[in-house]
């Protein structure tokens, strides 16, 4: 062998020494470290130009204006639009989610037709043809459920049903707005009601979770904020009456614990005390009212009904009397299911306090003109009760519809006694679901029509419930084209209607909205802005009426506001209805049953949206522990039921049962179990699915005598260890 070991060692040694003096090792080491910051499987951030676009949130019920950051034309993050009166720069968890939800794994990407147990993808032409055929065939036996609470889309759908001859089968998903609207009508009120928190100096929230689920939540929160500089004493007081520390209770100066569903009794108790203190009203039924509350709602009786001590109630009444601008807002602790009587009683207190259509009081706001022939008005829509209808279908008293259209609504998940309701829905002949996400309702539909999300379509937000002024703003597409093969649902409805020979007078929703804007702009209102604050206008400041191109202004994210209330005549205190509705009040609870309350948080999404992926991080481990719902009781209640923290329990209602883990917290009143809402999805994506259980399943919907409103905020459950 010519080369011996030494030579090889020499070569290797020389090579090694040489290599040390080249960049090979050092540069490679450095490059590897640089590589670790550029791993190909981790997304890169966009580099293009940052711009802002303005639109309105359709996913958040508060109707907030959004300021959306875009890079290279793609919407990335949403913040509150500071110039929009309903957001004033604030944004809720749902509003925040509008950008990334575009890419949710749960999105429906193509029209789907159910064949057997499976969905198959079909073309839009097929889908449209099928829908048109079904419309033609359904005749008067159709029904529609809309998840939109206020938009012009409801005009389109209700007009379609009217053309089919079943306008009475147009339903909204239950909301406070409907129940409050119904109550207002029963008292002889006109217009929609709203609450002027910004100008009030004492706000009493009766169950109404003002910053989370009740009314124009963002406007409420911003009004609250403006009254508190954190340096001086707050310019207004906020008292929360409810069975648990809700979002609103945490920000209140006082939390007055009260059994769930008993808001009416509190209000009437206060009314009795106010009248005793000299309050009166020129309402025609004042005398009857006085007699009714004086007899039935003395502090002692109220204490028995609500758990509020007599002296506490008296203090509350005193606070209201002493306040210059008191305001009482009733609602449900979870944004739905409060009895009509609660709203009526609270409105009656406001009437006694002379707080109707005055700054810092309750405002009746005008409805904007309709633009679709045959459409229902907001007031008319409020009268149709979906829970009542479906209960009747479930009981076999009313035939199931042959065609059921659901629009941005998820009734299979979002209604009380959910399993029973879902069953009633399943009985419909043909179910066409306009859905952006594969939700529980879409999953059981025959035809799923993928709907563009607000950032992909034109839409509008019209005076959300609770706003003390009429307000109109537009939703516009921020993307050049939808992320998936989706269409704006209303465009599809208009096209299908035309195809079925039921033309609704417009061939695109965008054009229809232009007509709507033109009609709205004639209402003598103004564009809200820095010098044109609706709250200031309500307080008496003159604001110049708008002139100019309203479409252009609204497309830039502005809000058109009418801040003049609807005059009231013949307003009553609703004594007769109240008396009838509350006849059963005070009935003894069943043994072993516990009052159930829920907490709804926008961060846990909504029935039609599911839990937005990024919001999940804000869901607390006191609501959801892994995949388990957490039921919260205080130590005293737990002791009564011999429960300990961490134990598994079963909660049973008349229509179903759910399981939960026990957590102890003194933020819930004795005798009440609090279960978070918005969990328990069986559809959607991994961020929603199999997370906790749906508390609506154990709720009991009860039809209130006289008002006809179905309520479930006072549900009771049986509780047992498992």
């Amino acid at each position, binding site marked *: 062998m010519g080369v*011996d070991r*030494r*030579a*090889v*060692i*020499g*070569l*290797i*040694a*020389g*090579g*090694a*020494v*040489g*290599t040390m*003096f*080249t*960049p*090979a090792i050092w*540069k*490679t080491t*450095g*490059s*590897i470290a*640089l*590589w670790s*910051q*550029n791993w*190909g499987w981790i997304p*890169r*951030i966009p*580099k*293009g*130009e*940052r*711009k802002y676009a303005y639109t309105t949130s359709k996913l958040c019920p508060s109707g907030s204006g959004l300021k959306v950051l875009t890079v290279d034309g793609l919407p990335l993050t949403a913040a509150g639009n500071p110039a929009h009166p309903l957001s004033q720069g604030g944004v809720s968890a749902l509003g925040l989610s509008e950008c990334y939800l575009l890419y949710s794994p749960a999105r429906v990407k193509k029209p789907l037709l159910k064949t057997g147990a499976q969905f198959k993808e079909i073309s839009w032409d097929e889908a449209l043809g099928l829908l048109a055929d079904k419309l033609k065939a359904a005749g008067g036996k159709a029904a529609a459920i809309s998840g939109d609470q206020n938009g012009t889309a409801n005009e389109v759908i209700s007009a379609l049903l009217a053309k089919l001859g079943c306008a009475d089968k147009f339903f909204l998903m239950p909301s406070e707005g409907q129940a409050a609207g119904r109550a207002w009508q029963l008292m002889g009120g006109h217009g929609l009601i709203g609450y002027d928190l910004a100008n009030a100096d004492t706000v009493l929230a009766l169950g109404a979770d003002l910053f989370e689920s009740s009314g124009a939540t963002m406007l409420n929160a911003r009004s609250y904020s403006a009254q508190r500089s954190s340096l001086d004493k707050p310019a207004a007081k906020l008292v929360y009456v409810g069975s648990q520390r809700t979002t609103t209770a945490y920000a209140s100066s006082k939390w007055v614990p009260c059994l769930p569903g008993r808001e009416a009794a509190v209000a009437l108790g206060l009314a009795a005390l106010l009248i005793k203190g000299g309050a009166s009203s020129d309402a025609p039924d004042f005398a009857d009212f006085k007699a009714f509350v004086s007899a039935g709602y003395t502090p002692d009786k109220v204490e028995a009904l609500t758990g509020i001590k007599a002296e506490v109630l008296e203090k509350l009444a005193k606070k209201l009397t002493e306040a210059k601008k008191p305001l009482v807002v009733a609602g449900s602790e979870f944004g739905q299911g409060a009895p009509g009587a609660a709203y009526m009683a609270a409105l009656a207190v406001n009437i006694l306090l002379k707080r109707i259509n005055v700054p810092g009081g309750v405002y009746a706001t005008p409805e904007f003109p309709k633009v679709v022939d045959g459409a229902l008005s907001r007031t008319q829509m409020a009268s149709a009760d979906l829970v009542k209808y479906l209960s009747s279908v479930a009981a076999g008293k009313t035939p199931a519809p042959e065609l059921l259209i659901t629009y941005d609504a998820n009734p299979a998940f979002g209604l009380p006694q959910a399993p029973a309701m879902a069953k009633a829905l399943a009985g419909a002949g043909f179910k066409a679901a306009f859905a952006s996400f594969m939700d529980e309702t879409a999953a059981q539909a025959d035809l799923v029509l993928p709907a563009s999300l607000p950032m992909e379509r034109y839409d509008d937000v019209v005076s959300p419930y609770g706003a003390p002024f009429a307000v109109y703003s537009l939703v516009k597409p921020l993307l050049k084209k939808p992320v998936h093969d989706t269409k704006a649902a209303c465009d599809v409805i208009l096209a299908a209607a035309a195809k079925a020979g039921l033309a609704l007078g417009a061939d695109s929703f965008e054009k229809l909205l232009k007509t709507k804007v033109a009609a709205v702009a004639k209402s003598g209102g103004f564009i809200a802005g820095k010098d044109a604050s609706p709250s200031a206008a309500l307080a008496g400041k003159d604001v110049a009426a708008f002139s100019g191109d309203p479409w252009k202004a609204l497309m830039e994210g502005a809000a058109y506001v009418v801040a003049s209330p609807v005059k009231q005549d013949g307003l009553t205190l609703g004594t007769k209805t109240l008396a009838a509705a509350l006849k059963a009040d005070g009935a003894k609870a069943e043994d072993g049953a516990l009052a159930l309350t829920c907490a709804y948080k926008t961060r846990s999404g909504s029935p039609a949206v599911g839990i937005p992926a990024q919001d999940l991080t804000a869901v607390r481990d006191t609501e959801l522990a892994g995949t388990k719902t957490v039921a919260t009781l205080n130590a005293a209640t737990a002791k009564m039921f011999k429960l300990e923290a961490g134990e598994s329990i079963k909660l049973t209602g008349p229509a179903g049962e759910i399981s939960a883990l026990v957590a102890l917290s003194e933020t819930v009143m004795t005798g009440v179990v609090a279960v978070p809402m918005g969990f328990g999805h069986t559809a959607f994506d991994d961020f929603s699915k199999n997370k906790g259980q749906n508390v609506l399943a154990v709720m009991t919907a009860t039809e209130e005598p006289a008002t006809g409103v179905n309520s479930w905020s006072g549900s009771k459950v049986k509780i047992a260890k498992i």
Partner: protein
Amino acid sequence: MEDRHSAKQTCGGGVLFAIMFIVGLAGALVAGWWGFPQLLYSQNSQPIRFSHKVHAEAGGMECKQCHTYAASGQYVGLPSTEACGECHADETGGKSDSDKEIDKLVKTYVQPNKPIPWLTYQFQPDNVFFSHSAHTGFECVSCHPDVAKMDNPPVYYQDRLSTYSKQTMRMPGCERCHAELGVNNACYVCHK
């Protein structure tokens, strides 16, 4: 093996060792300084042989005319396909190399309105925050290659491991200048 103790072997081995050591050393130096960079960097050319010279001299265009600062100054930006299309809307049909290149541009990008995947020599990684608006006092060429005089765009060398462009200004470069000018060198001035 057995004869490794012999003096001759040791002596001869020593010389051989030294020779081989030098061979190894030289080989490693060549491999490390010449071969290794070939291996590490991929060489890429721009999607279109764009001549800055033609545009700057013959066309009389300013740098900023195409490389407009974005309103916020964050990203100097490359011209959009539309901007190219303003002048090069139609194919020239010419036979010269330049004409063919223009036709390639028109056919591949302008007409279907597709973004041109230009390679950015000074491309900074995501973790760098750089604002052109804070550096307006400098000539472009104090950091960027002086392409204005170039007829052919320079070759783009990309580190295969780190994916960085070889020409990218690296942290010590930024730091040096900041230090010399007495500008803050705190981490977050340039990182995000």
